């Protein structure tokens, strides 16, 4: 990963990270329902979080309609992509650090624990 690892407080909440991560997956534009279903979130959460991302300039929104049904499409902006790349790099570093510390803890010698009174039985 070439992006500079940097946590982004705006992307950190899991729902916003999901939205940005899905938009960065390789698609040009993703429709509201597709994004909502893939992220596994509700309509209201999706609307609320997408407005936050749009206000921050991380997501571009295009509204249209097919017949009477409104359709909203989303795309990640260059700014959003940069922030996401940095945040993902930071998360990956964090994951590595956590797994390294877990390995260290597992490699510690096991100390036998004596239970008082256990020898009587």
């Amino acid at each position, binding site marked *: 990963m070439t992006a500079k690892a940097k946590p982004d407080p705006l992307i950190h909440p899991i729902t916003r990270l999901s939205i940005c991560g899905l938009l960065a997956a390789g698609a040009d534009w*993703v429709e509201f329902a597709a994004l909502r279903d*893939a992220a596994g979130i509700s309509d209201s*959460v999706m609307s609320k979080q997408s407005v936050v991302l749009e206000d921050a300039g991380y997501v571009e929104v295009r509204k249209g309609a097919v017949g009477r049904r409104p359709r909203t499409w989303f795309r990640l902006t260059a700014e959003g992509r940069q922030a996401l790349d940095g945040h993902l790099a930071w998360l990956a570093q964090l994951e590595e650090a956590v797994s390294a510390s877990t390995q260290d803890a597992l490699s510690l010698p096991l100390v036998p624990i004596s239970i008082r009174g256990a020898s009587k039985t």
Partner: protein
Amino acid sequence: MRDTARDPARVDPLEQLRVQRSRLADRMRPPWWYLPGVAIVWALFFAGPFTSRSFSSPTSVSTWAIVVPVLAACFLLQWGMTRATGIKAGPRLRDGLFYYRPGRPAGIAIAVVSIAGLGTEGSLIRHGLLAAAIVVAAFAVAAEVTAQQALLRAIRQDLRRGGGAA
């Protein structure tokens, strides 16, 4: 709908993102009419040499009579696919050309088959071997549909891997 994004059982955000991308990629399945539509478009395309031979009008007129419906059908198919899946992915127009790295092998295959198919068909028609030209056209259509399927597979893999992300 359950908020799986907030599921406390899934604490690893990177792993969760992988699962969600996989779900998005699974949506990128073509509707039932897409591949038959692609086959019809390519059949029209490979019918070009036959029509230019039988039409008494100048070749340019018969060529346009094929090219315009083919382009219109391509546009309609792509529009329908985007509407049905809710995902706009694949080759993108940049500097007047279409770019899409994951789909490059399929794109090259489509170009090679169309050029080779048209060339072979034209040559066979000139030598009066109409039946052989029809067989070549049928094989070319089948090859183009297979290449189109490979392109869709490449798009799905790219979405699953998160190829557009870092």
